[in-house]
């Protein structure tokens, strides 16, 4: 019997690693992958709670999060491909076209 707090702490650590990825990397694809890691960390916490409370709600919500993540990845990657076609680069430091 593992305490539920361990799962929540693990979820927080994975989420923070995702946040660090978004803050420190310049490759747009790696930033996107860190966002997926953050979503995954939240999913883990939800399934852990669902297992403790013996309810299905957490698992069903994780289904919806996975579906939304798939839709987001499709549109996001299309955007990145479009940006690459325009600027020949996916370095986010060079995406400063809207800078004043």
């Amino acid at each position, binding site marked *: 019997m593992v305490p539920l707090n361990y799962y929540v702490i693990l979820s927080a650590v994975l989420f923070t690693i995702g946040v660090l990825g978004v803050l420190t990397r310049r490759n747009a694809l*790696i930033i996107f992958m860190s966002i*997926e890691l953050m979503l995954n960390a939240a999913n883990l916490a939800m399934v852990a709670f669902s297992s403790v409370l013996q309810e299905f709600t957490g698992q069903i919500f994780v289904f919806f999060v996975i579906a*939304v*993540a798939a839709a987001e990845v499709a549109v996001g990657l299309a955007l990145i491909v479009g940006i690459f076609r325009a600027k020949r680069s996916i370095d986010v430091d060079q995406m400063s076209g809207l800078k004043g």
Partner: protein
Amino acid sequence: MTADLILFLGLALVAVATALGMLFSRNAIYAALFLVLNFVTVAIFYLVLSAPLVAMAQVTVYAGAIMVLFLFVIMLLGAEKLPAGEVLPWQRPLAVILGFILVAEAVYLLVTRAQAQGQVPQPQAAANTMDNLRDLGQTLFNQYLIPFEVTSILLLVAMIGAIVLTLREKKESN
């Protein structure tokens, strides 16, 4: 140390190690493969947490479709390596410091103040039966029918959006 705790710590170590491997990889393909390992580890976590359907959905959709899409785009754009060089040299150390503060705060709060009460039960064989699956399906299609249908519309919109965003317009030739 019970077997449950040893299993949890082993899986947690692999999950955190692969997440850090994704964070620190210079090569985008290695980062994507590390993330695939992380997703499979989280799927094994779901199996330990008596959620077999979500575990298989995670392997099929997340590790099997989304990461394959990522690898396609990485290889399409040739984005394995980015040239080094910082625009703002103080940005990275500041981000690392703030990230450490965030994780220290979160772990401190979760350990001392906002402890989640409860014990995760051991995975039972009853979780892998058709009865459990039928109950999950009934809950999904009875109480959560509207989010289910809205998700289908969301997927349709995402599909249209992805096609429209990558459409090349035909140039008129005069």
